[in-house]
């Protein structure tokens, strides 16, 4: 059901409450809509304070016996039948038309939001084969649960060994039993174990950056520096890079891959031309290098329209064979020099940020893949021939901006797993998931450290013990902060048992009578 909403003063609301039923004139043009039978009024813009039953929305006419929101410029008349005071949070509604709900400045047509429901991840089931699905269902019937991975392994084992139905039942039972045994204990300090499991192998990693799979010039940061970069949630990684996969059609075609790679490589004018400045006569001469242009797959015709867009006033462009002359009507040294500076970094082609793109044939998957130095996920995803479902970048912050925080969480897990794996170290994925979840659970990607998670801890003592001790203590005094002693560091500081593991439970002894 659609509802009309507007913002009003408290005085007016009270007036309506007093005089209803009555006509009320608003200063907005509201199209007449017969389906609207209700109206909500807000004063603060945060909560609705009144709910009205309305019978008519009509254009404004100067009638008697009506209330007016303002003295003039009125546009709509609504007839209020009944009105009552309510308290309802504005966030429970979403807009259909008119203004937006969060800032009801004029009016908005809204509907009540459906209550959020947590549904079982059905999207996963789409990928599972029916046997695995039915196995999971079967187990669930008995009130048990089985991770998808184990269910898959079970069905695979059934096929591989040719296990009969009866034996399979037995196997499922044994598996369930084993699965129960492997569960974590309540109050287990999973965070500390996770942190140790990532930190400990750090001592065994190398510091060097490596060349990318046989392609020189393309460095990829690996090992400890990369791991630190991931947990730091740096704005840009030291070596951003992308792996671009192609659609089914383009996958096998080298020419298409190469031309795509060339088209995304960001090329500046200086890459394909020499630029000369003539300050006495006041012009800039661009000398195009044919060979370099060919290498980059660039034609002169492509450069011209771009050049025309250059935002310098009163610039005349004339061209000869391989020479482009930019001159100004009123040449001044300063202007010419500025023009020259602009031209030097003038992008004639490609996507922002992508410095190089190299095409390689993946022997295993039998397809052409583009590897890039520099990253521009949003740009690349829009391109034709790009399989955006598989295309990757190692810039986690960019992923969170383009695809959202859930994707960033996956990216952190993926990147840290592969970094550790590349160093030949084996770390359980659960630890990395935990770190990733901790970094993203607030809704943004937050760094591990004083600017991120550690700086936002609830405990004064824990923050003071980590870094910038005095600042936290002094500020705590000003705002009268209360230390609730829920965490580990705080309790150690005051000399009490910690709240994890065996410290979380208390033992009592019941003496037998």
């Amino acid at each position, binding site marked *: 059901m659609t509802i009309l909403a507007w913002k009003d003063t408290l005085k007016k609301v009270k007036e309506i409450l007093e005089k209803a039923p009555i006509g009320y004139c608003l200063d907005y043009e509201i199209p007449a809509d017969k389906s609207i039978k209700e109206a909500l009024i807000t004063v603060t813009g945060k909560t609705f304070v009144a709910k009205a039953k309305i019978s008519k929305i009509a254009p404004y006419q100067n009638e008697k016996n009506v209330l007016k929101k303002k003295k003039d410029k009125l546009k709509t008349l609504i007839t209020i039948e009944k009105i009552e005071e309510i308290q309802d949070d504005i966030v429970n509604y979403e807009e259909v038309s008119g203004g937006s709900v969060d800032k009801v400045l004029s009016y908005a047509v809204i509907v009540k939001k459906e209550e959020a429901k947590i549904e079982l991840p059905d999207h996963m089931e789409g990928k599972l084969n029916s046997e695995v699905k039915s196995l999971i269902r079967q187990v669930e019937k008995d009130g048990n649960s089985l991770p998808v991975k184990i269910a898959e392994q079970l069905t695979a084992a059934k096929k*591989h060994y040719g296990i009969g139905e009866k034996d399979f039942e037995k196997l499922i039972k044994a598996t369930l039993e084993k699965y129960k045994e492997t569960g974590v204990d309540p109050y287990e300090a999973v965070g500390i174990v996770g942190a140790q499991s990532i930190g400990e192998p750090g001592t065994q990693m190398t510091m060097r950056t490596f060349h990318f799979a046989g392609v020189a010039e393309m460095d990829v940061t690996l090992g400890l520096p990369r791991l630190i970069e991931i947990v730091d949630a740096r704005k840009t990684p030291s070596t951003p890079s992308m792996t671009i996969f192609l659609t089914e059609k383009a996958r096998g075609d080298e020419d298409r891959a190469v031309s795509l790679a060339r088209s995304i490589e960001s090329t500046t004018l200086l890459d394909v031309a020499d630029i000369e400045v003539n300050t006495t006569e006041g012009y800039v001469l661009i000398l195009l290098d044919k060979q370099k242009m060919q290498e980059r797959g660039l034609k002169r015709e492509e450069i011209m329209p771009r050049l025309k867009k250059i935002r310098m006033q009163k610039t005349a462009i004339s061209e000869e064979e391989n020479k482009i002359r930019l001159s100004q009507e009123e040449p001044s040294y300063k202007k010419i020099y500025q023009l020259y500076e602009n031209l030097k970094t003038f992008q004639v082609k490609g996507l922002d940020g992508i410095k190089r793109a190299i095409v390689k044939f993946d022997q295993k998957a039998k397809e052409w893949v583009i590897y890039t130095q520099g990253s521009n996920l949003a740009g690349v995803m829009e391109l034709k021939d790009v399989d955006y479902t598989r295309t990757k970048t190692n810039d986690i912050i960019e992923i969170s901006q383009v695809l959202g925080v859930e994707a960033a969480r996956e990216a952190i897990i993926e990147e840290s797993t592969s970094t550790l794996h590349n160093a030949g170290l084996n770390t359980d994925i659960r630890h990395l998931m935990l770190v990733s979840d901790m970094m993203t659970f607030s809704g943004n990607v937050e760094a591990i450290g004083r600017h991120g998670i550690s700086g936002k801890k609830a405990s004064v003592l824990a923050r003071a013990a980590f870094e910038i001790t005095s600042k936290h203590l002094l500020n705590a005094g000003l705002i009268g902060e209360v230390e609730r002693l829920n965490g580990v560091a705080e309790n150690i500081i005051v000399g009490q048992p910690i709240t994890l593991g065996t410290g979380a439970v208390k033992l009592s002894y019941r003496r037998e009578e």
Partner: protein
Amino acid sequence: MKVEISKGIEELKFALLSPEEIRRMSAVKVITPDTYDDDGYPIEKGLMDPSMGVIEPGLKCKTCGGKVDQCPGHFGHIELAMPVVHIGFIKEIYSILSSTCSNCGRIKLPDSNLKEFFEKIKDTANRLSDIEYDDIVSEVESDASEVVICPHCHFENQKVALDKPTTFREEGKKLTPKEIRERFEKIQNDDLPLIGLDPKVARPEWMILTVFPVPPVNVRPTITLETGERSEDDLTHKLVDVIRINQRLRENRDQGSPQLIIEDLWDLLQYHVTTYFDNQTPGTPPARHRSGRSLKTLVQRLKGKEGRFRSNLSGKRVNFSARTVISPEPFLSINQVGVPAKAARELTVTETATEHNFERLKELIKNGPGRDEAVYKPGVNYVYRIDGSRIKISEKNSAEVAEKMELGWQVERQMEDGDIVLFNRQPSLHRMSMMAHEVRVLPYRTFRFNLAVCAPYNADFDGDEMNLHVLQSQEARAEAEILMKVQENFLSPRFGGPIMGAIHDHITALFMLTYRNPLIPLETGLHITSYIDVDRTPETVEVDGKRYFKGRDIFSLILPEGVNLEFKGKLADKSLDPNGTEGLIRIEKGKLVNGAIDENAVGQSKGALLDYVLRKYGNAEGAKFLDNLTRLAAGVISFTGFSTGIDDEDVPGEAKAQLREVGNEAVQKVEKLIENYKNGLIGMEPGKTLEDTLESMVMKALSQAREKSSEIASHYLGMDNSTVIMARSGARANMMNLAQMAGIIGQQSIRGQRQHRGYTNRTLPHFQKGDIGAYARGFVSSSYKEGLNPTEYFFHATGGREGLVDIAVRTSRSGYMQRRLINALEDLKVSEEGKVLDTEDSVIQLEYGEDGTDPSRSFEGDSVDVDYLVKEIFGTKYEGGKK
């Protein structure tokens, strides 16, 4: 020792001290800038006034009457002649000055705006985090500070500027702390929340000090040197300065001295107060000791790694602990630790005398404080009577005290075999760095333990020291035994596999015992089996009338019954094992029938056999297996003997010639590549420059040379060679190391490239300018055994140096990363429903790791090892896949 009922701390609240509060809690008004008089007595109303607590034993506190260990110390105070600002609140003072009206003391925003902000704070009061609150406060500040005319009283305010570190100016005119204080007094309590202050605990004018608290003497004790000279604490020094200047300021003010002099003194007082709080304030020269060392004042005491927080509060020194050098002892179980008798006599466990242990404790007391005997017998060091008085047990009074003992006495008993202790080696990078062991008291002076436990501690015996902690309560002992014992930590939570296992000579020994299933003379075999804890001997075979054991049969003795396992060993390669008798390790019904035991069977974090025994038979059986394994290995190697020397790397003359040939060929190949490059005959590889292409081709050619030399070396060095046995079995080193000793060391690199830095166009003056050949860029064609020529030696050293620097940088960087990780994640716990929660009960994960599986109980990350289950349940029924 009395039993005390400890009270818990529920919560702590932080607040500012008001001048009244400071006076109220003050025990004495300090007016004399001196400490002790000539006779060594504290001066009345001086900085060491006994009203502020006592530090000398025997004296009593004037305020509470307590002795040294009873009196907690009491604050004193100084009345400041003129107010000064508190350096820690400079920023807040500045922002309050610029956002409030100097005339009426209101925030310079219209009432409607203020209301809105209040609404914001109130509306979300419950779920408002500090960060959101800070944002609102800074929004108020930035909005209000731009207003010139106060909307409340229409006064025209002037812009306030902060002249760092402590001076405020209004349109160039200095604002004295006194004036600031007067302005702050006008601010209404109601406005405070918008300024970032809680009116219940703080008033803005309290940030300007008029009364100065003097900390108790316990906080700044006097140190008496051996010479009898007294040395005051840094804080006391600073307080002397404050009082002295304060006095002079008061005198000058009362006498009506010129304003200039008063202002100078006022500034000086401000300086001393500032440095008393923080001696590293930017813009202020640090106050120094006579010797030139800068003083450690309040902030310095708290801050950083050596500060109170990290050094004394988060980590504490403990009693009942010991530290000494470690050494190996294969005859101890992995669950045990050898403790030197000397240490065991000092480390005690306190036991309360009850009906159950009365007689035993009596006997212990009779033993006295311990005698030097061949067999260690625990004694008692101290006994506490019920009233808490302590008796020291000596040889003389032991019998007497033992007779007098009553129920309820506390007996500090010396450590004995079987006590549970925690054993730890730093850096404690993971939880297996601190595990529980059972004590075995041993002679000599080192801690000793089984070699299989080196891996989790990352210990070796080149002088490493370790710490030991004796548990004191029954609860702690129970917890340690169930959760922390070595055998409970076989499986690493990092990857769900075993991290302990045989190392070095253990692997060598077992390899020699099982490689080609040697015949072992009966007598030797019996000796070897006497090392292990079994009650049977293997069958013998007769050859030429002599009786022998078979090596693999001896090894089978330590296997638990019913082991059925097949996996690939390190020799699983046709070239190494043409008959297939060594590489494939097969155990049937607890008997080793094929294969040589090597690193893949019993090594650290990859021993398949070890893993199998642990999972199938449990931790206790696993521990027994490892115990027996280490003893057996010690037995074997004692009888066979094993050594290596420089002649192990001797290769025959023809091999030497071949190696030299390989080296020369590589160098020539490089020459040719360079010639081609110079003549422009090299094509560019995609994505590379011409130089890079050449470099990668050269690198390839040179690494091929090393591989070739490795091949030649392994061809001429056979399994009769000790080093080869070690390399092939995985005990230590690898074939490439051997090839480097016998053949060619190979290219030395810096940052993954050939050596290229140095002089103009050359790496060393020994080469021609522009020479980019193999030798000129760090190729070493000599072997370690032959020795390196000077240029090779130099390049080798640069490569080695890079490695050292890398390690130094890495340890500090990864240490800091781990500290941050721990700090961020330390509070996470699994709830009873299996969710992962933080301290505020926010849900971080709905189910730990998406499947609730504990990695340390997983099978290398999988919750369940299905293949293993199939084998266990159905035996051989489904062996070899689908039929």
